[in-house]
C-alpha cells in the first residue's frame, strides 16, 4: 500500500515542484510565469504527439533512464540502501548519455560528454555524504537512518556541501552545462521527441523529488523539514538568476573544491568527536 502511494504521489509532487520552479523563476525575472500545473499540460501534450523513432536503442535508453531514476527514488523512499540509491541515480544519468551517443547528432554527442562530466562532478560529493551518514548512524540502510533525528546538527558541513552541489544536480546555472540551451539546445535530450521525450521529462520531476528527499534526511524529525527544502530550492533559483553559465571543467573543479573539503572536514570533525 505504501509502495503504491509512493509510486502514484511522487510524480505528482515532482510535477508540482517543477511547476513551482518555473513560477518562482519567472517571478524572479519580473514575469508572471506559467500556471503551476504547467508541467502536467506539457506531459499530456508530449504523449499526444506523433512518435518519431530514430533508433530502438535510443528509445530504450530513455526508458532505462526513467526506470532507474524511479527505482532510485523508490529505493530511497522505501528505506533501501543509500549507496544503491546513489548508484541507481548515477547509472540512470549514464543511460541518458549512452542513448545520446547512439546517434550521429553532434549536439547529442557534445551533450553526452558533458553529461558524463556532470556525473563526475555530482556523484563523489554524494558518495562522501553517504559515508558521513554511515559514520554517524552506523548503517547505509535508509529505514534505519530515518530513525535518527536532525542529522544537520552533527553534520552541518556535509549539508553545506549538499547545497553547494545542488545547482549541478538540478542542472541550474552556473552548472547547467549538460543542457546548455543556448549552446547545444538541450544536449543529450535534443533528439527525443513526443512520447519518447515524456519519460525523460518525467524523470526530471522524479530527480527533483529525490533531491528534495536527500535534503530531507538532514532535517528528519524537525518541523522545519519543508521549510528547509523550500529554502534550499529558492536559494538554487536565486543563484540561477544571478550567475552566468560556466564551463564543464569549471563545474567539476568548483564542485569538488567546494563540496569535497566540506564533507571531508565534517568527517574529520565527526571522527574527532567535536561535533
Amino acid at each position: 500500500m505504501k509502495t503504491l502511494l509512493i509510486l502514484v504521489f511522487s510524480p505528482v509532487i515532482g510535477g508540482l515542484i517543477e511547476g513551482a520552479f518555473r513560477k518562482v523563476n519567472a517571478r524572479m525575472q519580473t514575469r508572471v510565469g506559467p500556471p503551476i500545473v504547467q508541467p502536467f499540460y506539457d506531459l499530456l501534450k508530449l504523449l499526444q504527439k506523433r512518435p518519431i523513432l530514430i533508433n530502438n536503442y535510443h528509445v530504450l535508453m530513455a526508458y532505462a533512464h526513467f526506470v532507474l531514476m524511479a527505482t532510485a527514488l523508490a529505493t530511497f523512499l522505501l528505506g533501501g540502501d543509500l549507496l544503491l540509491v546513489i548508484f541507481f541515480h548515477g547509472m540512470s544519468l549514464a543511460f541518458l548519455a549512452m542513448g545520446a551517443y547512439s546517434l550521429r547528432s553532434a549536439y547529442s554527442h557534445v551533450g553526452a560528454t558533458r553529461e558524463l562530466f556532470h556525473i563526475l562532478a555530482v556523484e563523489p560529493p554524494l558518495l562522501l555524504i553517504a559515508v558521513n551518514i554511515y559514520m554517524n548512524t552506523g548503517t547505509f540502510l535508509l529505514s534505519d537512518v530515518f530513525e535518527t533525528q536532525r542529522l544537520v546538527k552533527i553534520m552541518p558541513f556535509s549539508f553545506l556541501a549538499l547545497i553547494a552541489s545542488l545547482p549541478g544536480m538540478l542542472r541550474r546555472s552556473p552548472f547547467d552545462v549538460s543542457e546548455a540551451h543556448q549552446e547545444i539546445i538541450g544536449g543529450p535530450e535534443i533528439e527525443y521527441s513526443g512520447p519518447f521525450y515524456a519519460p525523460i521529462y518525467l524523470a526530471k520531476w522524479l530527480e527533483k523529488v529525490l533531491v528534495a528527499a536527500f535534503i530531507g534526511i538532514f532535517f528528519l524529525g524537525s518541523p522545519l523539514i519543508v521549510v528547509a527544502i523550500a529554502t534550499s530550492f529558492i536559494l538554487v533559483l536565486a543563484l540561477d538568476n544571478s550567475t552566468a553559465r560556466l564551463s564543464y571543467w569549471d563545474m567539476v573543479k568548483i564542485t569538488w573544491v567546494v563540496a569535497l573539503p566540506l564533507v571531508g572536514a565534517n568527517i574529520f570533525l565527526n571522527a574527532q568527536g567535536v561535533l
Partner: protein
Amino acid sequence: MKIFELGKAKSPWILHYNTGSCNGCDIELLAVLTPRYDVERFGMLNKGNPKQADILLITGPVTKRCRERLLNLYLQVPEPKVVVAVGTCSCGGGVFRHMYNVENGVERVIPVDVYVPGCAARPQQIIDGVVKALQILREKGRALEVPPHLKKIVRGREGGIDRESLLEDLRRR
C-alpha cells in the same frame, strides 16, 4: 477526452526560423518572451529544437537558400503542428516581392495556418497569432500532414516521405 485536448492547447513550444527577414519581427518575437509581454503565461517556451516544437513561427519572405532548410524543419516537427507566418513579408513577400532571390512568402513552400501581418509585427499581434494557433492546434490530430502540393511524393500508405524526390521537386518549382 477533454483534458487531453486541454493539454494540447496549453503547452505550445515554439520554434522560430528566420527565412531572410529584416530582423524586425525576430526581435519582436524575442521581445514577446520578455517581462512586458511574457508569453510563458500561456506555457509557451522557445525550444529552438524542431523535434520538440509544436508551433513553427516563420519570419521572412523565404530566400532561395532557406527554402530547403525550412521544409526540413517543417518535416522534423512532429504532428500536431501549426505554422504561423509572422510579418508582412512572410505572408506574401512584402517589399521583397519579386526580388530575384525570394520565394514570395512562406505559403509557397509549406502550408500556413495563421498569418500575422505588420511591418514589423507588434508583440501584441504575435501573441494574438499564437493564441489563434492554439485553437487550431486543439483540433488537429496526430495523423501525418504533408504539404498538399507534395502529396504525390509521399510513399506508401503509412507515409514515409521520399526526401530526395521531395527536395528535387522543390528545386524545380
